[in-house]
C-alpha cells in the first residue's frame, strides 16, 4: 500500500515535471498551458516526440544525479531539453543513427544548462534563458557536418491551407509564435495564442504589439526581405517582449516603452546575427532574444534608483499575478522599517505640534512631535492653568520608544514657571538613546532632577526614562520627541515613523502602522491583549483541526504551523496550501497565500489579513488585498489588457473589532472586503464579508465568510494541538 502511494507520487511528480517544463517555454507555471504546448509540438509528430524525449531525458538525468527536486519539478532543467529535441527533429530527418545520437546530446544539453544556469545566476544574478539550448544545438550542427549522409529537411503543414486566405501579416504572427517550439504553422500559432490569452492578457497584448512593431520596423530598416526572416524576427521580438514587459520586469508604462525600444534592437540584432552567421550552417534561432534580454536586465541592475522598471526576483505566477503581488507588498510593507518604535508614553496623548508645526518645528527641526494630555474638553489643564501642577501631563512618565543605550542625559535644568521659556538651555532636560544602526531618539523638556538614568545605561522599549516637565524652551509642560542621527542634544531631526499606534478620530479608534501622528490628533500605543495575542501568537508545530462547510458541502481541514528556510512562519493545510505569516511585536499579518480558493486556510487568510494584538471595541483598520488573491473578479480579466498602464480595480478590507457580546466571552473581528473599480469602471463594486470569533481561552473558535457570489463558508474549531 505504501509502495503504491510512493509510486503514485513519483508518477505524478514525473508528469508534473514534464508539463511544467513545457509551460516554462512561455514563462508560465501552469500545467494546462504546458499540455497545450505539448499538444502543439505533436502536430508534427516526429518533432513533438523528440521534444518529449528531450524533457524526459533531461529530467531523468537530473533526478538520477540528485539535483534539486523542486527545481526539476518546476521545469527548470527540462525546457532546454525540449527545445533541443524539437530543434533536432525540426532540422533533421530521423534515422536510427540520429535516434542514437540525440539522447547523448540531450545529456550534453542538460550539463550545459546546469553549468550555465548556475554560472549566470551566481556571477551575474541572471536567468539562463535558452542559451544552453543554443550552445548545444550549435555543437550538434557542427558535429554533424562530419557526416555527409545526414538529411536536412523542411516541414510542411498541410492543414495550414485552410488559413490560406488570412493576410500574410496575420499568418506570420501565428507562425512566429509557433516557431518558438519549431512548428511554424498557423494552426499551431492559433492554439498557442489562445493559450497565452488565457494565461495572461499582458503577454497576449505584448505579443501582438511587439510582433506588429517588428514587422513594420523590418520593412523600414532591413532591405533583405524573406518570410523566414520576418517570422524569426517576430518570434525573437515576442519572446523579448514577454521577458522585458512582464516576466522579468514588472509590467508598467515604462516597461511597455522598454519593449518598444527593445523591439527595434531585436530587428537590428537580428540583422547583425543574420549577417554574422551568414555562410555558416548555424541558424539564427533565439540568439537575439537571449542577447538583448540578458544585457538589458544586467545593465538595469546598475542603476542608482531601482524604483522603476522593477526587476522581479520572486515571481509567483503570471505577469498579472506578479504585478498584483508586488504592488500589494509595496502598499502594505514598503513603509516598514528595521525598527519598530512605539509612542514614548502611556495612555492617550494629544499631538500639540506635529511635523512642520506652527511654532518651533521648522526647517531642520521639522520632523518632531510635541505631546500633551488633554481632558474631554480638549483643555490641557484643570483650574486656571497658571501652575505647573494644573497641567495634566506634568510629571507623567515618559518611556523609551525602543531598546537602546542611553548616550546623553541632561537632568538638572530647572522647570520654568508657566509661560516662561529658557532660551539659554533650549532643549531643557533631555534623554538621548542610541537604538543602534545610527538611529537615535531624543525626549526633551523633562522634569528636573527626576531622571534616574545615567549615560551608558541600557533601557528596554517601554521603560520609564523620565517625567514630563517644563524645562528649556517650554512655556507649558509637554514632551518634545524626535528621532535623529547623532547623539547631540538639539541635532536636526530625522523623519522616522512609529511602528504601530491607535488614533482617536472623533469617536472612532483607528489603528495605523508605520505612520506619523498628525498635529491635533489623539494617539495611544497598542497594548497587547493576552487573549488576542494567544489566538494569533501561532507557534511552530501548532496543530489545528477545523470542521468546514461551503454552502452545503462539509469537510475537515487540518493545519500545521511550520517554518521555511528563510525563517518565515507559515500555516500549511492537509492539501499543502500555505499562508505565510508576518508577526511583529504588536500586529499579526498574513503576507501571502498559495493554493486554491476554497480552503479554510484561504478564508482565514482573508479574514485575519491584519490583526492588531489588542482589543478596543470598535477599533478599525484597513488593508489592501492583491486582486489575484480574491475570487469573483472576472471583470478583472478584461482590465488586464491594459494592466501595463493602469490597474482599474482596487481591493480593500475594512476591519473592525465588534463590541463584545454580553452573553459569550468571545471577541469578534469583522471584515468587509470591497472590490472597487476606478476610472471607467467606477460603477463596478463587489463586496464580500466575514467574521472571526476568538473565544475567551484565546482560540480561533470559528470563522465564516460570504463571497461575492454569495457562497457561504463556515469553519469551526474541533481540535487545537490535539485537545
Amino acid at each position, binding site marked *: 500500500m505504501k509502495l503504491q502511494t510512493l509510486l503514485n507520487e513519483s508518477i505524478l511528480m514525473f508528469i508534473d515535471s514534464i508539463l511544467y517544463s513545457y509551460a516554462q517555454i512561455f514563462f508560465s507555471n501552469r500545467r494546462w498551458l504546458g499540455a497545450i504546448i505539448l499538444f502543439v509540438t505533436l502536430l508534427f509528430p516526429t518533432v513533438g516526440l523528440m521534444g518529449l524525449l528531450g524533457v524526459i531525458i533531461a529530467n531523468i538525468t537530473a533526478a538520477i544525479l540528485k539535483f534539486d527536486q523542486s527545481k526539476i519539478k518546476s521545469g527548470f532543467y527540462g525546457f532546454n531539453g525540449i527545445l533541443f529535441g524539437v530543434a533536432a527533429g525540426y532540422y533533421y530527418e530521423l534515422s536510427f543513427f540520429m535516434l542514437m545520437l540525440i539522447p547523448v546530446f540531450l545529456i550534453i544539453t542538460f550539463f550545459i544548462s546546469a553549468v550555465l544556469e548556475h554560472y549566470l545566476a551566481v556571477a551575474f544574478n541572471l536567468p539562463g534563458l535558452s542559451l544552453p539550448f543554443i550552445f548545444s544545438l550549435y555543437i550538434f550542427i557542427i558535429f554533424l557536418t562530419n557526416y555527409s549522409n545526414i538529411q536536412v529537411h523542411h516541414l510542411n503543414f498541410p492543414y495550414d491551407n485552410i488559413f490560406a486566405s488570412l493576410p500574410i501579416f496575420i499568418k506570420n504572427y501565428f507562425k512566429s509564435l509557433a516557431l518558438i517550439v519549431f512548428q511554424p504553422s498557423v494552426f499551431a500559432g492559433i492554439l498557442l495564442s489562445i493559450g497565452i490569452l488565457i494565461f495572461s492578457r499582458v503577454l497576449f497584448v505584448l505579443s501582438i504589439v511587439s510582433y506588429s512593431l517588428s514587422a513594420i520596423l523590418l520593412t523600414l530598416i532591413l532591405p533583405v526581405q524573406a518570410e523566414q526572416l520576418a517570422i524569426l524576427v517576430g518570434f525573437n521580438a515576442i519572446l523579448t517582449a514577454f521577458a522585458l514587459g512582464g516576466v522579468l520586469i514588472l509590467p508598467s508604462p515604462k516597461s511597455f516603452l522598454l519593449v518598444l525600444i527593445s523591439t527595434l534592437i531585436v530587428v537590428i540584432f537580428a540583422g547583425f546575427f543574420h549577417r554574422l552567421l551568414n555562410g555558416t550552417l548555424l541558424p539564427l534561432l533565439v540568439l537575439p532574444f537571449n542577447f538583448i534580454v540578458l544585457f538589458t536586465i544586467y545593465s538595469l541592475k546598475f542603476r542608482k534608483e531601482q524604483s522603476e522598471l522593477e526587476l522581479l526576483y520572486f515571481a509567483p505566477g503570471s505577469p498579472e499575478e506578479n504585478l498584483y503581488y508586488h504592488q500589494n507588498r509595496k502598499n502594505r510593507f514598503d513603509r516598514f522599517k528595521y525598527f519598530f518604535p512605539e509612542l514614548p*508614553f*502611556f*495612555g*492617550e*496623548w494629544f499631538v500639540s505640534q506635529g511635523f512642520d508645526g506652527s511654532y518651533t518645528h521648522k526647517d531642520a527641526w521639522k520632523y518632531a512631535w510635541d505631546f500633551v*494630555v488633554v*481632558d*474631554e474638553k480638549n483643555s490641557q489643564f484643570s483650574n486656571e492653568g497658571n501652575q505647573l501642577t494644573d497641567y*495634566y*501631563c506634568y*510629571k*507623567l*512618565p515618559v518611556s523609551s520608544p525602543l531598546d537602546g543605550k542611553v548616550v546623553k542625559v541632561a537632568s538638572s535644568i530647572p522647570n520654568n514657571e508657566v509661560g516662561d521659556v529658557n532660551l539659554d538651555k533650549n532643549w531643557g532636560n533631555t534623554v538621548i538613546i542610541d537604538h543602534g544602526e545610527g538611529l537615535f531618539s531624543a525626549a526633551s523638556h523633562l522634569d528636573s532632577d527626576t531622571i534616574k538614568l545615567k549615560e551608558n545605561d541600557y533601557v*528596554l*522599549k*517601554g521603560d*520609564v526614562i523620565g517625567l514630563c516637565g517644563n524645562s528649556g524652551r517650554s512655556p507649558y509642560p509637554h514632551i518634545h520627541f524626535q528621532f535623529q542621527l547623532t547623539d547631540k542634544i538639539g541635532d536636526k531631526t530625522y523623519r522616522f515613523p512609529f511602528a504601530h499606534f491607535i488614533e482617536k478620530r472623533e469617536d472612532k479608534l483607528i489603528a495605523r502602522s508605520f505612520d506619523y501622528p498628525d498635529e491635533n490628533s489623539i494617539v495611544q*500605543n497598542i*497594548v*497587547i491583549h*493576552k487573549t488576542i*495575542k494567544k489566538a494569533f501568537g501561532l507557534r511552530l508545530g501548532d496543530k489545528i483541526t477545523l470542521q468546514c462547510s461551503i454552502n452545503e458541502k462539509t469537510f475537515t481541514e487540518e493545519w500545521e504551523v511550520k517554518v521555511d528556510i528563510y525563517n518565515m512562519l507559515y500555516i500549511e493545510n492537509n492539501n499543502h496550501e500555505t499562508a505565510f505569516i508576518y508577526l511583529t*511585536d504588536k500586529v499579526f499579518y498574513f503576507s501571502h497565500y498559495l493554493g486554491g480558493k476554497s480552503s479554510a486556510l484561504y478564508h482565514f487568510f482573508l479574514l485575519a489579513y491584519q490583526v492588531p494584538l489588542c482589543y478596543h471595541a470598535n477599533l478599525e483598520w484597513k488593508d489592501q488585498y492583491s486582486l489575484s488573491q480574491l475570487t469573483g473578479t472576472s471583470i478583472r480579466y478584461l482590465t488586464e489588457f491594459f494592466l501595463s498602464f493602469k490597474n482599474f480595480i482596487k481591493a480593500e478590507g475594512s476591519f473592525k473589532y465588534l463590541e*463584545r457580546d*454580553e*452573553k459569550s*466571552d468571545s471577541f469578534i473581528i469583522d471584515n468587509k472586503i470591497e472590490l472597487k473599480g476606478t476610472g471607467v469602471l467606477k460603477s463596478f463594486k463587489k463586496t464580500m464579508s466575514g467574521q472571526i470569533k476568538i473565544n*475567551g481561552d484565546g482560540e480561533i473558535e470559528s470563522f465564516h465568510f460570504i463571497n461575492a457570489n454569495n457562497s457561504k463558508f463556515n469553519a469551526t474549531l474541533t481540535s487545537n494541538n490535539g485537545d
Partner: protein
Amino acid sequence: MDTKKRYERPVITKHYSGFMNKIGTSSFSKPKKDIDGVAVTDLVEKFGSPLFVISEKKIRQNQRNAVRIFKTRYPKVQFAWSYKTNYLNAVCSVFHQENSWAEVVSEFEYDKARKLGIKGENIIFNGPDKSRNALLKAIKEKAKIHIDHFDELYEIIELCDTEKLKAKVAIRINMDVGVYPKWDRFGFNYENGESWQAIKRIITNKDLELIGLHTHIGTYMMSTEAYRLAASKLAGLARSIKEQFDIVLEYIDLGGGFASHNTLLGQYLPAEEVIPSIEQFADAISSGLFELNFKNDELPLLILETGRALIDDAGFLISSVLANKRLSDGKKALIIDAGVNILFTGFWYKHKITPAQDCGLHTEESAIFGPLCMNIDVVRESITLPLLKKGDKLIIEYVGAYDMTQWMQFITLRPNVVMIMEDGSVELIRKSETLDYISEMELLPLKLSLK
C-alpha cells in the same frame, strides 16, 4: 427684582475682639440654588423632600479623569466599580458604560451585576462570605474569584474536583504598609507567610489557575506612600511567582480606598487641603509596580476598585427645615427631614451643608437633628449657618458613596432618588418607598389578624 424682602428672625451674636481681620470671613458657602443647572425648587416640587440627586455628568467626568490619570502612568489599567459603594442600577450602568467592570462582595451583588448584563469574567468576586452555591456559579461563569481564607480555598478545590471544573482565581493579601489599625482581617497575611502558602497551594492544584493578586489596604486612605508600599510588595510577590513557577500573572488588583473630599469628624483641616489627589495615588502605585521589571508585554493589568472617590461628589441630598429650636444651653438647633436613617455617613463625616436659597449675612451656630424620634439622629453637632426658617432647603453634599447602600428603612420611608442626566433632563431612578412595599415581605399569622 424682589418685591418683598425676605424675613429673617432677629439674632443676637456675641462679639469676640481681636480675632477679626479687616476683610472678614464668610463662614458658609454661597447658596447653591441648582444642581447641574436644575433648580432645587423644581426638583423638590416634583420629587418631594428629602431627595437624593445624582449627577450623571459628574460620575462620567470622575471616571474619565481617573482612567486618564492612571492610563498615562501605567499601560494597562482596568477599573471595577465597587458595588457596595452605590449599587443603584442606574449608577452601576453609568460606570459600566464607561468600561468599568463590577467588584462585588456578596452573592446578592454578584447576581445584581449579572442581571445588569455584566459577564462573569468581568466581575471581581471579593469578600469573606461566598456561599457554596455562589462559588459554583462564579466558577462556571468564569468570574474572577478573590479567595479570602483557606476554608474558601479548600471549598473551591473540592468543588472543582467534584464538579469537574477549572477555576481562575486570585487571592486577597493583607500586609503592613504603615497604616494603623492594620486591616488584617481580610485575605491572607503577607508578613507571616500565609499568602505564600496559599499561592503555592493554588499553583500546585491542577484545577486552579492563579491569575492575580489583590490587596485592599484600607478605606479613606490619606497616605500615598502606603499604596506605593502595597504595590511594590505585590510586585515582589508577582516576581517571585514568575521566577519560581514561571507563571506570569494576568493582573494585580490594588483595591480602592482613595479618600474623597469629605472631611472626617474630628479632622481639623478641611479635606481639600489634606487629601492627596488621585494623581498622587496613581504616581505612588505606578512607581511601586514598575519595580516589577517585567517585559513590556508581560506587565500585569492594574485593576482598581475605586468607589468613594468616583461617586461621593456626584451625590447630593436635598432636605427641608422642619423646625427651629433652642436647646437648654442656649444653642440653636435645626430639625430637618433627612436623618441618619438615610444619611448614614453622617456618623463619619462633617458633610458640606449649603443653603439652597438666598439668605442674609448673619450666621448662627447650631446643631442639626434629623426627623427620627431617636436620640442618635444627629446630622451635625455644630455648624455655622445663616438663619433658616421652616421650609427652607439645605443641600448636603458629597453623599454619593455608601449612603444609598447603607441607608435603612427605620421609622420612616426612604425617599426618591433622581439622576440629572447629561442633557439636563431628570430621571427618577429609585422610587420612594411605600407602606405596601415595606409590608410585602411580612406575613401575619392568621390568629394575630385584627380583621
